């Protein structure tokens, strides 16, 4: 009986806190993406002629699931199909990692970032435990410095 109550309390708290945090994070992401829109990011390796300096830039983020997401995924595991809550989680993590990478590039006064690569890892203690997802974004930031002749 007690276990049942604990389960439902965790579920409710997880749902409301998770939803609130997600909404707030998305607002933040959209604002920063607008601010950093002047630094384009590409996955290819083409370097424009005027760029003569390159720096490694990285951005990484670790985001945790809440109890509701975990239960939802567990049940969905039986029937199959897209898990909307996890899609949102990974989308947020990817965008946040790319944004942090861009912020690092901005510190270098870079013009653009090329050769973007993304890597993600799932961290958990045991199968079925509450887990975190880590996304790591890295690329080369390009800058054209004045060449002193």
């Amino acid at each position: 009986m007690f276990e049942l109550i604990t389960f439902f309390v965790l579920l409710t708290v997880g749902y409301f806190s998770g939803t609130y945090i997600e909404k707030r994070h998305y607002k933040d992401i959209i604002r920063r993406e607008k601010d950093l829109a002047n630094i384009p990011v590409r996955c290819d390796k083409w370097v424009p002629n005027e760029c003569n300096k390159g720096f490694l830039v990285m951005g990484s983020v670790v985001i945790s699931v809440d109890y509701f997401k975990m239960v939802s995924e567990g049940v969905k595991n039986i029937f199959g199909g897209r898990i909307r809550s996890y899609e949102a989680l990974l989308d947020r993590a990817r965008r946040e990692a790319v944004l942090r990478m861009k912020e690092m590039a901005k510190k270098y006064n870079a013009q653009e970032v090329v050769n973007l690569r993304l890597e993600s890892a799932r961290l958990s203690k045991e199968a079925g435990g509450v887990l975190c997802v880590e996304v790591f974004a890295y690329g080369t930031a390009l800058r054209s410095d004045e060449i002193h002749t």
Partner: protein
Amino acid sequence: MKFTPKALSDNPNVSKTHPLKEFAFSVGLLFVIGGGLFVGLGFLADYLVERISFETEKSLFEKWGSSLELSKGVVENEASAKLQAMMDSLVRNESNLRYKPKVQVVCWKEPNAFALPGGTIKITSGLIRQIKHENGLAFIMGHEVGHLQNRDHLRGIGRQLVFLLGGLVLFGEHSAVSAKMVGLVSSMTDLSFSREREIDADNYGLRLVKKKYGHTKGAEEFFVAIQNYSKAEKYIPSFLSTHPSSDARIQNIRNLQDSNATLVDLNLDLKDCKE
């Protein structure tokens, strides 16, 4: 001219369904399928249990019964002999009884009575002290004989086993959480099954009492006595308890009664019992 990427108005990477709707749909489907499966497996378990002969049951559980603490505190005295005589007369003309039930007194303060596989019924001294008339005790004995006759304990174990196997097949080591929810459904269906069995055993006991005494007055004596003893029962909702509430059982018994009948006094000497 420098390229500046434009922010997209919507996000193609995230599905548009609301997470609660998605969750409710999956859970609903799970409960429907799970419920259906458990009902089906319940029938299967019942079918299998009826195929186990009484002799097999007795030999399987003899060793188990002796290893439990239940063998402690049993007294063989005049009280036990009198109870056994009562039991014998209660089941005298039961033609489909495949064994001879043995009744023993256990010196425990807590009022309780249980039937062990193999045909032994143990009644605690705590229970006997709550009862003043033979009719009440005869009903309890009859109730326990009913459980044995219906193989209720075997059904319970059989059902749990079948559900456990079903759960293992479906989930294995995956997702402890969905297994927990499935466990929820199974325990709910188990509890309602158990309550049904208790009412069946009550009716069996009533039938035996009516046959012996000609009426069923006084059969509810024990339940009336323990209504004061355990107030906690009122706080457990009925769908979560293994037994129907005492009120329900008393009502069930009284509905079949003739109020003009007389009760037989119970005089049992329990001085050998040191609880």
